[in-house]
């Protein structure tokens, strides 16, 4: 399978050299956002795809990470980059509380509880003005003019996240997570402390999502509660990224991040200016259609059902 490895090597090299090959600010921004979603999607996938706990509230961790970085800058007067180091840790602390509350519930009830959690944190950020500046949001001066450093930080984050999850899933923890997903009661009867391992999965997931949030603060320079705690644009997007790409696979969320950001951007820019203006509102509709299509025909996502996709093309040829 030398050709296979060569291909992946080339893909890897492309991403490493991308900002140098493509000097456009616009495309660099797009790929940085894709890389951020690789992190968030992979994190969600660890908790939901592999451990079976479907969270509708990952915005909690993204937002907490973002605000940690922002508050470091505005309240503590230290660089928001410290937030990058601490955003993940702050998210883990919040995750302990979220897990304590929400893991009493299972399945759709757990999902609803996390959804409510996301909204609660959004309202907290909106109203706790002394801490978060409320709807005014937090504005910081970006450290770098060029996007290059941000690109490589995002690339580093994405690689660290995906590889960490890969190694976790290969370990005893990986077996335990999947056992809990398949049947929690059986897992308990097999000697697995399901409460503990659900929380471990959540902590890892929250850590990377929070780090992504802190990165977002540093990169964009501006956050407010509506942006970082948004139900649709953060929590639901994380779910779509993982499902379309392939839940319960290692590279699925990476593929999903690429596809979903691409679709989102294609519609937001009305097919890059080629289509009439009203098309730009259509991305939500297309997301919905895409999810329906995936659930009906490619229920394991693009990566999960890759054989099926290849089969369609070989038959057509």
């Amino acid at each position: 399978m030398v050709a296979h490895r060569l291909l992946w090597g080339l893909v890897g090299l492309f991403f490493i050299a991308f900002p140098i090959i493509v000097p456009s600010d616009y495309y660099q921004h797009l790929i940085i956002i894709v890389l951020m979603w690789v992190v968030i999607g992979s994190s969600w996938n660890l908790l939901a795809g592999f451990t079976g706990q479907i969270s509708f509230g990952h915005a909690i961790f993204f937002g907490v990470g973002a605000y940690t970085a922002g508050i470091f800058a505005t309240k503590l007067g230290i660089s928001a980059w410290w937030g990058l180091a601490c955003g993940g840790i702050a998210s883990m602390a919040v995750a302990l509380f979220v897990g304590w509350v929400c893991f009493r519930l299972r399945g759709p009830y757990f999902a609803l509880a996390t959804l409510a959690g996301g909204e609660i944190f959004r309202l907290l950020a909106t109203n706790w003005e002394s801490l978060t500046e409320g709807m005014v949001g937090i504005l910081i001066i970006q450290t770098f003019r060029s996007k290059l450093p941000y690109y490589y930080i995002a690339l580093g984050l994405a690689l660290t996240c995906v590889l960490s999850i890969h190694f976790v899933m290969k370990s005893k923890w990986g077996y335990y997570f999947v056992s809990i997903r398949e049947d929690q009661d059986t897992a308990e009867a097999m000697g697995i402390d399901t409460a503990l391992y659900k929380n471990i999965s959540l902590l890892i997931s929250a850590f990377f999502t929070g780090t992504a949030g802190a990165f977002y603060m540093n990169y964009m320079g501006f956050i407010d509660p509506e942006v970082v705690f948004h139900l649709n644009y953060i929590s639901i997007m994380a779910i779509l990224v993982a499902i379309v790409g392939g839940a319960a696979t290692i590279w699925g969320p990476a593929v999903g991040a690429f596809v979903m950001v691409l679709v989102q951007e294609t519609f937001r820019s009305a097919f890059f200016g080629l289509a009439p203006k009203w098309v730009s509102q259509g991305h939500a509709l297309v997301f919905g259609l895409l999810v329906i299509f995936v659930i009906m025909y490619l229920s394991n996502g693009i990566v999960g059902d890759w054989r099926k996709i290849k089969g369609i093309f070989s038959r057509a040829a």
Partner: protein
Amino acid sequence: MPLLELKKVFKAFGGLMAVNDVSFQVDKGEIFGLIGPNGSGKTTIFNCICQFFPITSGDIIFNGQSIKGLKTHQICQAGIGRTFQVVKPLARMTVRDNVTASAFCRVNGIREAQYEADKILEYCHLDMSSAKPAKSLPIAGRKRLEIARALATRPTLLLLDETAAGLNPTEVDEAIALIKRIRDDGITILIVEHIMKVIMTISDRIHAINFGQTIAQGTPQETANNQAVIEAYLGEDYA
């Protein structure tokens, strides 16, 4: 000292007394059978032993210590393994991974766990299916997988819940042989079973319940001839 002792166990679900003053002892090395018609409370008793829910009153003593109030996974770690009446394969994992996950209860490290799993799969005659997803196994294989998973936790006491249900006569004979082998290797067995052939041939002692209450206890012969037992089973199929 008995390995397992149930002392005046009561379990109520709201107004329904599912387990009503049940007491028995299981001695080390024996095969202890629990019989009763559908809905009599047998699986509930298993769930009580494994603490899937707290018991209403009474005590359960394992190896001289009360296990009341322990969490289910702690009970497994203490040495009680369990199979489920409605088989629960970890469907999307392979057969080998099912048992490997279980083996982590006693060993650390992937290689050790996989080695343990392979040994147990061979013991349970599942080694041919080891790489297949668990959901692809037919019912007999799934029942053996339940046992294999429980064995991977190195139990001192194995709770078997209707291991022979749904099997054809050949498969039933294989199940009986496997259970005897497990007992001969030193594991005490508490078995719930409907199929009389299984329970009567392998049990050392039998405890019969109906509507959550004890109706008879003794050797297979005594229990089979017990009036209350015959009445309770009137209309049931005999295997």
